[in-house]
């Protein structure tokens, strides 16, 4: 059998892997933003003990290799909690929790970069702190965070391949299975690499379009 027909035969199987990979990335990014942003707000505006808790969280998740985290949760923490969770779910959650640790720092930096005058002016108009954060601080800091945040997509996309280690049938896992069955190595792995590159490129294009869409003259990264 030649390579082309092997590829043709296994394409549907690879496509299934792509959807699992994208599923991991989507869930992980979702968790990352959903936790990372509130964590950042707590780190800037919250009470001291809460700030310390977030710092400890970020330190833990940024301090361990992904693979260690993955094994720790898949074989250790979740089973110890009596939870028998599917590998896909554990993989997505671990990537998400880890992403939240990094993203909380990206958002924190962006929030802290906003001139304190913005908050002062908002308060002087009678806004509460909460309203000022929602209407003034967040719209500005999210724009500032976007370029830094856009690293998260390729980061999590490439990290997702490590879920191979706990048997999630994502792109790399399926590629390896095909190699094992067909004994064709180089072309299959190249195909896998190409798919990762394309996914990366497509995602970055989307982020770029969003960045342009929300850009404000004279404000943020494009300012000057």
């Amino acid at each position: 059998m030649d390579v082309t027909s092997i590829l043709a035969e296994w394409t549907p199987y690879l496509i299934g892997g792509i959807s699992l990979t994208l599923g991991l990335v989507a869930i992980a990014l979702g968790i990352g933003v959903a936790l990372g942003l509130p964590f950042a707000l707590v780190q800037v505006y919250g009470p001291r003990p809460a700030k310390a808790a977030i710092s400890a969280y970020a330190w833990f998740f940024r301090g361990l290799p992904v693979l260690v985290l993955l094994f720790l949760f898949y074989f250790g923490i979740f089973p110890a909690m009596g939870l028998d969770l599917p590998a896909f779910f554990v993989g997505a959650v671990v990537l998400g929790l880890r992403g939240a640790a990094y993203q909380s720092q990206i958002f924190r930096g962006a929030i802290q970069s906003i001139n304190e005058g913005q908050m002062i002016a908002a308060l002087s108009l009678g806004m509460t702190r909460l309203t000022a954060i929602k209407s003034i601080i967040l719209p500005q800091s999210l724009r500032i965070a976007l370029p830094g945040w856009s690293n998260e997509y390729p980061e999590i996309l490439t990290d997702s391949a490590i879920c191979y280690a706990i048997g999630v049938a994502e792109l790399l896992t399926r590629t390896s299975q095909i190699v094992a069955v067909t004994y064709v190595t180089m072309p299959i792995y190249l195909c896998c690499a190409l798919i990762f590159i394309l996914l990366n490129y497509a995602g970055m294009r989307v982020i770029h379009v969003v960045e342009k869409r929300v850009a404000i003259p004279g404000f943020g990264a494009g300012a000057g």
Partner: protein
Amino acid sequence: MWSKKELPSRASGQGQDSPMKDDAFVLRVEDIHKKFGTNEVLKGVSFNVRKGETIVFIGPSGTGKSTLLRCINQLTIPEKGRVWLHDDEVTNSGPKISYFRQKIGMVFQNFYLFDHLTAVRNVEIALLKVKKMDPESARRQALYELEQVGMKGWADHYPAELSGGQAQRVSIARALAMDPEVILFDEPTSALDPELTREVLEVMKKLAKSGMTMLVVSHEMGFAASVANQIIFMENGNIVEQGPPDALLYDPAYVRTRKFVGQFADLTQRKD
């Protein structure tokens, strides 16, 4: 020229030369003390403000003038002392401070326009988020306020696209939109070159003539001489001397005041 036609009229104060009753204090400030660390910036400052009055605070840098303004709307919390708006205490007012801050507008040296919003959005955002106005009325009022400061044509421009003078005029419109009884101006022209300073001072003069009550920290002695009803000279956290421009600028009672205003003699020359 500042009268509102369809909109409710703001501070219906009289012109600066109409007679005023002694009990008509809009704002009373009593014995304000403020320390930053061990540095005592305000050492017990008291004064009263009548409706429609323009008070200009002068004095060397670092004598607590700006801090005093911030203590009035509680952006800085004083250690001691009280502030009243009419008969309501502004200090220790808890969540009601939001209401007082609407009634006591503020204009800053560096404008502090919201950088992500166009001029008109800058003016209307607090109408929407604080006054909970419907979008249509908020937009209408925001455009009206911009018109008052000559910035209606710039409504859709972002702060970065405005000159300093234009930005400051938008920030005055933003404060006006909340329908304040008093506006605090914290060195409103110190970041501007002379030409831009003039356009901002013009707007402030117009505003003073319309009867707005204004407290102005400024180094613009010409403005103080021509617009202020009262000038307060501060030094080292205290009020040294207070009086109408005629007395304070041309015939001060204290040597320290005389020394300070003497430096600006050429700017306050009487044109008669």
